[in-house]
């Protein structure tokens, strides 16, 4: 890692580079370049990082404008409690409890898939016959 004095003493300035590979993904940090101006930084970044990959958008930011916290600051990143009440896995007993009512647990992925299609869907497919989850297993989509 460079320090403030290192990048301010040279002739050029350091820029951090962020690439957005897909329109629906966030920009991702890929590395840094040294350049004489913002315009040049964009060109150098394009040459360094995007010779092959297809990208949707490219950002360069002067390094000095990036405020940083690292894991050295333990308190800052501390998770004070076991926070499973904030996560889906804190409620994993729901599926068993629905089953007692002869009902299948619902997952958000299937809702996402469902609304892509027109029509009301079949309410009978929502009910679990017997005790299985057989009717329609929740499709697990990539990346969601």
């Amino acid at each position, binding site marked *: 890692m460079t320090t403030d004095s290192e990048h301010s003493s040279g002739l050029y300035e350091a820029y951090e580079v962020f690439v957005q590979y897909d329109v629906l993904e966030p920009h991702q940090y890929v590395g840094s370049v040294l350049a004489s101006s913002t315009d040049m930084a964009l060109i150098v970044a394009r040459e360094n990082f995007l010779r092959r990959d297809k990208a949707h958008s490219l950002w360069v930011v002067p390094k000095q404008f990036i405020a940083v916290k690292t894991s050295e600051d333990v308190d800052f990143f501390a998770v004070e409690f076991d926070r499973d009440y*904030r996560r889906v896995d*804190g409620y994993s007993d729901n599926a068993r409890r629905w089953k007692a009512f002869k009902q299948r647990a619902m997952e958000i992925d299937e809702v996402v898939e469902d609304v892509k299609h027109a029509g009301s869907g079949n309410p009978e497919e929502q009910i679990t016959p017997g005790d299985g989850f057989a009717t329609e297993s929740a499709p697990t989509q990539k990346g969601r």
Partner: protein
Amino acid sequence: MVTSTEDMRVTQFMARIERGEKIEATDWMPDDYRMVLVKFIQMHGVSEIMGAYPEKEWVPKAPSLRRKLGIMSKVQDEIGHGQLLLRVAEELAAPLGATRESMIEDIYTGRIKFHNVFHMPAPSWADAGVIGWLVDGAAIISQAALLDTSYAPYARVLKRICAEESFHMQHGESIILSLAEGTPEQRQMLQDAVNRWWESLMFFFGPPEISESARVMLKYRIRERTNEELRQKFLTRYVPRIRSIGLTIPDEALSYDRNKEQWTYTQPDWQRFGEIVRKNSGPMSQARIALRKSAHTDQAWVREAMKRTADSVHVSVLGK
């Protein structure tokens, strides 16, 4: 000629939309695209914020520490969703002179509306559960249907929101399952809450007719499903689940027509709820708006003080 360049730009824009391309904040866009998006996203963001109020009322009264932590996390998420969405809205509305301050002020000057459900009271813990289960359930269906929206910054934020909503879904179910497994009194409390919320939930998706702004949104692929399609999907998913835990839905006309593959249901009182939303005249509208207003105005000095501190630090750093 000015009009022909304008026409050409609109044609090019429509071609982008039809190719399924996503639009960024910095791209050229027709005025009606911008206007309809600003209004829609601002209303979405403001509804997230006002939506935290009915549940926030239950944070001090939650029945156990774990429930308190759970509902507090959810309230935090909703306010967080409001912030992400207002960020998207204010960026789009910047050419129109809007700011974060004005977007919040719009709530108490009545310039922006929020969802009917958040004007209603939540008198019991079962209401907190039903909000988490069914109101979030309805909101999840609406938001999931927007994931493929043509406006990229909105789509990216929605993706994040939906990921967090999967916790809201489980959280709401967990509360209502506990009540459903409980004593006859607890089950009755749950039934009463469903009775209170059902009509509001039917209204939530909006009228079955396609309004002018809905037409613009369909044209520009801001959304692709109609109000009625989403209400139908909600019924398909939730009616069997509500019934499976032994609850009655307070609508005798409710039934699924196998031939038409459609639900028949009693129309909510469009007139009454429409007025509640337009005039902020629901049972809890004024009280919650007053709270939102005092949070905004009483703390104006804090925002200003923080800005002054930041400015003076900036000056002294640069001055060195």
